[in-house]
């Protein structure tokens, strides 16, 4: 009975990828004009579900019903025809085309085969007005701010007469003002009867905006929260499925001598600021900050990916110059990069070939020939040590799940026997089980005397794992917080540019 105005009903949906069940028998309901938030940790299956709804992928099992009618979402066109529009987290505008051209891309109004520019611009202006964007539709999309681009995406969704608008982390790269603006537009859309599925990690936003919250965990439907049930604690509990104290079990180690000392380091990305800090043996140091705070750039400078412009780096007390990753590796550094697939792995190659890549040279016979035996030994050792789930060492890494891929990257670096491990977002996009194993590994390594420096955007992870936290804001270090003083507030204070208390 209560489901009369049900506009979207997803039932028993299952989607498998090689090595992982992304969605296992999940459900999702959306009513007309409703604001539904979909939350869950990375790897919970939110994006996969959205892709299925948008017709980018096809489910293995289960049904999708739009307004009571079962639809096979076999292409983006079908999905759009049923009024579903997806706005990706990474915006999909062609920067070299105008706003109007972007809005009508692929559906350009024509007169006898020629583009009808006048109609295009008129219509585009109308849709831009609906999202409250007062800009000439001839402007190039690349000249807009991220927030404006987001609104253009919404205008585009309106232009296909979308009744269901799916937004994937729309505020992740917006300023507070831009977010406000977006919320206003969303409220206006709801007035027009558009239903929203909103995916976000920002629980405060979710709490403020949602009529209902659906929670996924590890590819499974966990439950719904409605009205007053939507609290921060309830959402976290559902998402994580256990208490946070259980989740992180870090005990600080006895720290030794300084492994890395950095003084007045100026990176290529932020040449105006000088960075100074040290890391001791056996210490786990977190680097926190907002997106664009220059954390990755600092690791890149340390590892020689984008060599520092000036400043001194001392490794185990000796001043060194690092101009390439090769130098850094020779000094005992290792970097697990942020972009696993783009920078960490050679996807078409096997687990073995990836694991041995950074240490091939050390074990080479007569400095030229590969030592296949050592390669196999190292790989088997790493598979065992990291509990990588792979059928065998010759498995192509592209077929492994995110968590296991990350373990292969870690294995590659552990095989070089480093003294300082740099981790850039080590648990991004991997499942909870693998996350915990990586935390455990960080513990073990620190206990063995390795120094670990990790960048993370998840505050919980920073608080749970680090002995000491360095906080960055717009290219400079705004402060260091010791384990005792570590709270979300103290981090956010510094991360948003506040002074050191």
């Amino acid at each position, binding site marked *: 009975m209560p489901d009369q105005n049900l506009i979207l009903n997803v039932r028993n949906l299952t989607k498998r990828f090689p*090595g992982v069940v992304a969605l296992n028998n999940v459900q999702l309901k959306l009513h007309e004009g409703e604001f539904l938030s979909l939350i869950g940790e990375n790897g919970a299956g939110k994006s996969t579900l959205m892709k299925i709804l948008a017709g980018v992928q096809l489910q293995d099992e289960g049904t999708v019903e739009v307004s009571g009618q079962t639809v096979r979402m076999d292409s983006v066109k079908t999905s759009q025809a049923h009024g579903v529009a997806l706005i990706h987290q990474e915006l999909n505008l062609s920067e070299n085309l105008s706003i109007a051209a972007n809005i009508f891309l692929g559906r350009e109004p024509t007169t006898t085969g020629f583009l009808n520019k006048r109609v295009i611009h008129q219509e585009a202006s109308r849709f831009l007005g609906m999202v409250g964007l007062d800009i000439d539709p001839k402007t190039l999309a690349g000249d807009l701010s991220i927030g404006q681009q987001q609104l253009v995406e919404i205008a585009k969704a309106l232009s296909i007469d979308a009744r269901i608008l799916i937004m994937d982390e729309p505020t992740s790269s917006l300023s507070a003002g831009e977010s406000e603006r977006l919320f206003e537009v969303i409220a206006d859309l709801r007035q027009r009867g558009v239903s929203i599925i909103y995916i976000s990690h920002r629980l405060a936003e979710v709490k403020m905006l949602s009529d209902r919250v659906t929670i996924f965990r590890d590819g499974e439907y966990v439950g719904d929260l409605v009205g007053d049930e939507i609290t921060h604690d309830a959402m976290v509990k559902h998402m994580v499925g256990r208490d946070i104290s259980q989740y992180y079990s870090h005990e600080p180690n006895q720290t030794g001598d300084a492994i890395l000392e950095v003084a007045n380091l100026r990176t290529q990305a932020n040449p105006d600021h000088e960075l100074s800090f040290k890391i001791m043996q056996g210490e786990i140091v977190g680097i926190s900050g907002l997106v664009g705070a220059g954390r990755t750039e600092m690791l890149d400078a340390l590892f020689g*990916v984008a060599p520092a412009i000036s400043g001194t780096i001392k490794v185990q007390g000796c001043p060194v110059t690092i101009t390439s*990753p090769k130098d850094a590796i020779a000094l005992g550094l290792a970097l697990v990069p942020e972009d696993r697939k*783009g920078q960490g*792995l050679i996807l078409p190659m096997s687990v073995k*070939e990836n694991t041995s890549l950074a240490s091939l040279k050390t074990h080479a016979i007569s400095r030229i020939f590969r030592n296949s035996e050592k390669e196999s030994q190292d790989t088997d050792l790493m598979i065992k040590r990291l509990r990588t789930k792979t059928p065998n060492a010759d498995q192509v890494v592209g*077929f492994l799940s995110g968590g296991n891929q990350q373990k292969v990257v870690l294995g590659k670096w552990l095989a070089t026997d480093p003294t300082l491990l740099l981790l850039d977002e080590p648990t991004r996009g991997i499942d909870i089980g693998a996350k915990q*194993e990586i935390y455990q590994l960080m513990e073990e390594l620190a206990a063995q005397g390795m120094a670990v420096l990790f960048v993370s955007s998840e505050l919980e992870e920073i608080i749970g794992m680090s002995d000491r936290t360095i906080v960055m804001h717009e290219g400079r270090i705004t402060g260091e917080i010791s384990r005792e003083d570590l709270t979300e507030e103290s981090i956010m204070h510094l991360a948003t540019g506040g002074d050191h208390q």
Partner: protein
Amino acid sequence: MNKIMGILMLLVFACIATNILSGGNFVIPFNLQNLMVRTSMFGIIGIGVAFVIITGGIDLSIGSMIGLIGCLMTLSLMKWEFSIATTLLIVLVVSVGLGVLHGVLITKAHLQPFVVTLCGLLIYRGAARWITDDATGGFGQDYNESLRLLATGRPFSTSAVLIVLGIAAALYCIGRISKAATDHEQTGGNTNGKWIFGIVISVGVALSGTSRFYNFSEQTVLNLANYTSVEIYNKFDSEKLDIKTLDESHPEKRPSQFMPEISLNYLGYLALPLAIALAIFFLQVDRKTAGLAILLLVSGAAATYFSSNQVQKLFANRQDIGMASILKVTLSLGVFILGLDRFLKGVYKALPERRGLLVITCVLAMCWLVSQTPICRVLVPAPMIFLTVIAIAAAIFLNQTIYGRYLLALGNNETAARLSGINTDRMIILAYVICAFCTAISGILFALDGNSIQPAGHGNFYELYAIAAAVLGGCSLRGGEGSIAGVVIGAAVMRVLYNSITLLKIPTTLEFAIIGVVIMIGVLADEAVKKLNHKKRQQEEVLRVSLVDETNPD
């Protein structure tokens, strides 16, 4: 492996089809020798460009560089009258220098490989024409007995190759037996059967090679040949053929020169019972796949036999063979090759414990195939030795050294390779230098072989043949993929195709079009197979990983 298998099948197909359709003209010694020379020279540049393609680059300047090298050589030797050593040194230094230049422009100046080498194509051609005043050059007769022997020399006979191959294979088998003995002392010699059999076959091959040097009487040879398909008498002339022309240095041993063929033919007969045995095993394991493969094989073979008989009749009556016979032969042979491919892959997969037997059967079948050609009476051309040495060195470099692995890694993902501590710029430069070096070697051979170098035309389009060979041989232009064996076979396929156009009297104006179409079909088929395998594999992965999950819970 799969890819090399496919291109090998294509080569076998092209050879047999050309031979049938040309009424046996394909396998005459002169043609085979010529084919080996051309394959060698194009194979060398194919190997060179393969290294560049593996890094995700391309080299379009190869043909022009070959032209420039030819011109430099004639100038250096004939006009400036430098010594042979100086000349070769100049050529090597110039080409390697240009290779370094390409690499530096691409890695340090961040230009695109296509653009850099396109400019190279234009510049080197222009330079070659300018330094020679566009005058055709050559080496005259002075170097016929010295430098030109590098390209035109025929240092030893294929029988010697048979001996070496046989001994090497035998030693390998002995090595495996002794290794097995030390590895599993408990399990006993149960698995050694195939290796012992292997030794017997290898020794047989080696002995076939040596048989050429014994003094058999004409009667013995004729008697032995009676039970084989080896033809001592020429099909076209009524006289005894070839004997006079080919073994003049040992006139007294003339009849013996047929002995390797005859003995290989006898060895080859062994393949039939083994193949039947394999077929029976295969049928027992997987009736459906095996049945289809065998059906294809048998029907294809029968159809090929009848259609080739028809063609022969047409030849005997000096009639035009026509399009219909060409189609008949290619189709029936195609069915046969398809069956063969399915049979080999099926047995390999379904009967892992019989793989040794499969290899032996294939070797014996090859012996039989070889015995159907006069290849045992052919002398090995010198460029073939260059190709062999370069191919072995390149394969070892690519597969056994850390630098080979680096090249493959950076071809797939340059950023990840650099972040793993690989000096990617230096590796890319190295790839262009290897390519330039190979171009230099084959450039020298091309110049010496032709002995007439037109600055405007010498080497034109050779880069495209090289790239085509690499692509046919399994290199992906996206980088990160490639095998040396594949490239060499690819070059051979290209030459056989080219040869067939001449032999089948297809208008040479169609030459490029035909080669283009064949490459297109090859690459399309490859893509289709890849997609299919990928799908199959993905399904298997899901299954396998879910199994791992169950047996290995965290």
